[in-house]
């Protein structure tokens, strides 16, 4: 499996590249007042309205943690725009049904971009118990790459199949 990798604070994360539609520099977004705090806002990309998820808030990092992880440099963040259920469906129905359950265009905010890694499925391990920063349901597995631990995200969970009625639709 090809994995698109990113840095978030000092952790190394990745998502299945088949689920990624495009990546762009962070740009101006519009907050949605009244939405959960991990929804950063809405973004217009060529007429599509993308809902941006703030991963750090999604992982419930506190302000101190964010400060600790981010360091002092001002961040040039990136938006990772995901494919929608319909788009993934064209590639693989199975993948769409298991990994990409959301209907709306959504995106993740990450701090830095990493390489694309080829990760054989059998190299993916269950997350170690002492992993900090991400709670288990959000993790699909971990892979040791060189000296780093790459956390492969359970994207379906992050976009909240259970918490958001809008994200739960499964198109038969």
């Amino acid at each position: 499996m090809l994995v698109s990798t990113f840095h978030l604070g000092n952790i190394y994360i990745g998502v299945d590249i088949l689920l990624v539609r495009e990546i762009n520099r962070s740009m101006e977004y519009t907050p949605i007042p009244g939405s959960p705090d991990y929804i950063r806002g809405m973004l217009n990309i060529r007429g599509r309205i993308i809902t941006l998820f703030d991963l750090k808030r999604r992982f419930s990092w506190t302000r101190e943690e964010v400060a600790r992880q981010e360091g002092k440099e001002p961040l040039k963040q990136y938006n990772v725009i995901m494919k929608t259920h319909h788009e993934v469906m064209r590639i693989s129905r199975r993948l769409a049904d298991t990994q990409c359950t959301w209907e709306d265009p959504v995106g993740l905010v990450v701090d830095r971009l990493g390489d694309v890694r080829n990760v054989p499925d059998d190299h993916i391990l269950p997350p170690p118990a002492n992993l900090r920063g991400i709670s288990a349901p959000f993790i699909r597995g971990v892979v040791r790459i060189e000296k780093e631990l790459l956390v492969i995200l359970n994207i379906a969970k992050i976009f909240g199949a259970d918490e958001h009625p809008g994200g739960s639709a499964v198109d038969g």
Partner: protein
Amino acid sequence: MAEEDEELLAMFVQESTEHLENIEPNLLILEERGAATDPEIINSLFRGVHSIKGSAGFFGLTAISKLSHTMENLLGKVRDKSIEPTSEVSDSLLSALDKLKTMVHDVINSEAVDASAEVATILGILERSGHAVPSAPPPPKPAEAAPAPAAEATPAAAAAPAAAATAPAAATAVAPSGASDPFNLENFVGAVTDALKENRKFFDVRLEVTQEDEKERKEFVNQFCQLVESVGSVIDFKPPLASGGAVPSLPGNALRLLVSTVLTADLLQDIVQLKPQAIQTVAIPSALVNKLAPPVPVSKPTVAEVVEAEPTRAVAKPKANTYSARLVKPRADAGSGGSAGRTEDKAKAGQPTVEETLRVSVALLDELINMAGELVLTRNQLIRATSSFVAQSPHLASLVQSIDSVTSRIHGKVMQARMQPVNVVFNKFPRIVRDLALKLGKKIDLEVRGGDVELDKSVIEHLSDPLTHMIRNVADHAIELPKDRVAIGKPESGKVELAAYHENGMVNIALIDDGAGIDSERIKTKAIEKGLITESRAAEMSEEELLDLIFAPGFSMAKKVSDVSGRGVGMDVVRTNIEKLRGTVHIASKVGKGTRIILKLPLTLAIIPAMIVSAGKLRFAIPEIGLIEIVRVAETDLAKQIQMVCDAPVLSLRHTLLPLVDLASTLGIETQDGDGGIRWMDVWLRQHTQQQKTNAAANNQSVPKRTSRPPGHSISHYSQAIYVMVINVSGNTFGLVVDDVLDSEEIVVKPLPSYAKDTTCFSAVTILGDGSVASIIDYAGIVEKAKINFSSLEAASADMEEVTRAALREKQNIILLETPSGLVMGIVNNMVSRVEVIQRGNCRMENINHQSYMHYNGVSFHILYPDQILGLEGNGYGGESSGDDDTFCMVVPAISGLQVGLMFSRIVDTMEAYIDLDTHVIQADGLFGTARIDGRLVLFPDLNRLFQLADIMPASVDAPVDYDGMKALVVDDTPFLRIVTTTYLKQAGFQVEQAEDGMIASQRLKNTPYDLVVTDINMPVMDGLELAKEIPSTLNAETPIIATTSFISSDLVTRCVRAGMVGCVPSTDKFRLLNMLATLKRV
């Protein structure tokens, strides 16, 4: 293959549905006009049913085929006029149609639908009229029956329809191949004329007559003829029949019939159950066509006209060809059905350039619309981005311009593609009304107009339910029973008008009836009964507001619950649905005359006009529908115009209190300029609460405090100017406070991301011109979130009204002066002739007989110290000793013949201010009252009274006419002036009542007699002149009216007199008022 079948079946359903849609209105016409129905309509009915039958046969849908066959038979009889189209006939056809609809809509299960009752009814009718079908409906012959006769036909027969379809001229030559003696159509000019106008064709039908017995032969031929007559007519026989219909012995047992019918050969064959070879087309010779054919020009709307015009015109050859080519394809015709569709078809027939339509899936259309929307946005950005280069490159400018215009056009056209005529919805109402009328035993004529007005598909889709509900209501409640109508002199049948039309960029749909109307009193009683409103509230409600209550949830006016309507849900749903479409509902009604409900709908939901506003650094779109006005409140006016009622901020807007909702704080937006998320409103509230506490403490002292208005300085430096968007939602009005109004834009509505659905405050999102996203505010959601309680506010509003109204009155120009004792007095400018600031050294004081006089500039003045006369002493009276000032000032009042000066130590200020006069705090003879101005307590003396108290009243006034016991009404919207005038009149002996504006006054004048009316001219709601015109129709027709005004002019005096007033005097001028009164008394 299976897929293809499915596709074909889908096409069948679609096609049949279209036929059914056309059949229904035509059946209603048939029902209404009976025997007088245009034969063309019956033909069209016939063809519609027939097409369904034909296709159903092809798919082996026996049930559909059987039912439609039966209907067709009956329609055939009706067409031949052998069965009178009674209501029984149309009823049976309508119920059969319903069954047919059910079957077609669920075509897969259509076989299981039991239509035997409908079939039996129709057969019953047929039987009674002696036209029972000889043979049973055709056994289904799937696939082989209708569509493929050519394939299995003999070459000779096959040639016929094909040839006819191509060139009629050639067809003549080919037609009756194996026959010895062709029918010559030249002999049947009448029949051919009829055929041409009805799109009929001629067939040569060869019938085997094998019976030996002449009687049997006659019987058999008769039966066959009857069968044929059900779908067409028999024109001639070969060999000809003997008299009395006896059939001669036939060579080769073959009787040939010339048959004229609208059907194609294959369909005819299907009905008469003969071999395909036995039926051959007889083409109409082209010469005959040219001679007889209607001259096909486009604008021949009715068949009748065509026929009358035809014989003289033998031109238009190619057109005639087109026409006859169409003759063999009636099924294509039938598709467009309906009488209107028919005429159109005729027109088209003559026009080679037919306007074609194409079915496009809605999904594709939506995608196109989306992309067109994006194109518009990109265009906007392009224009912005290139604006700086345009000057350098003229070529670029023209490119951008043309992209601009093309984009606009594309967008416009694409949006147009979504538009549908409202007829899509309207078409079903004639049937609904008919059924309801029958069921309820009423007579209702429904007139539908403006069906071609177009609305966006999404609006149309959601219009059906509310409209249906409204129409049911009208039929059920509004229209009276025929006998009741006749009893009150109305025509027996009720008239209901359903009309669509454009107005102000919206589409209005009006539903007007001439029924019983809605009794607002009954609504009132009912609403109180149901606890929807309180009695006191009900008493204040206008007729319109009361009528509006029928849209309140849980309100149903039906005296008894019926299954038509009256379940207590309904009209509220209507309003909710219409408001969801961003539309509004308006109702007007007159008891006994009827009701008018108007729905105002936007043309489209995809693009709406909106205001772009900012709140807490974010931008939002506020739909213009429902937005009544925008009020800018300057920061200096915040304190004056915004008050607290029931702990909620309200804006005094004209005569009402408008609850305010701060957009940013409702949404929980933190302002980003570092004040920790506290917005001015909160600051204001905090300040205000504190202020109230201080006031409470201060109230123990003599400081008066009537209003709960905080002093201006407490908020002004925290705040900025604000904008209040005055918004009406479900009949309630509130003000949405925003920081700024940026723009007015037509925005493209995009669905709200599902992750934002929990926030009820937004209905959708849009992309602004600069490419950023903005949420569209949902009014109802905001109201809910902000928890506005409109009812408690209304109550409070009533309490606060007096105060609010007072605050809104005219400003007065006043001079504030300080007395030597330190009191501040206010005198209205126009009571003052002049104010002189006098150097102490320049004058000489003198006391004569306990009166003070001053000699100044060679003139002597009788001087008065107002505080002394009023008996009010400030911080120690000091006369000359007041301060070290070597000046003082003297006010000379504008009272002629008086050399009086009022002594003050200095002028504090001159200003224009609202005077909110309080007559209770400090009461003294000679004092109008007190008011707080700029935090200071100001006393307003009654100068005239002062001089009376000082015994220096001018003689002219003191010829007192006795007004004791007379009653006067003082009308003035300015409390100060009202009190002034009242005081004057009271002093003259009047018993005085007050009214705040013309409207209130005219109410009182209706019930109470007065001896005098003194009214201000300029007033809100109803001004003095209007009031004067109202008075003659009241109890007080003879009562003299005197006008007061701050700016008197001869023109105004004339107008007053013309309005029936005695005259006009300057307000606050006691003498002229009393003088005018004196002239009256003498009269």
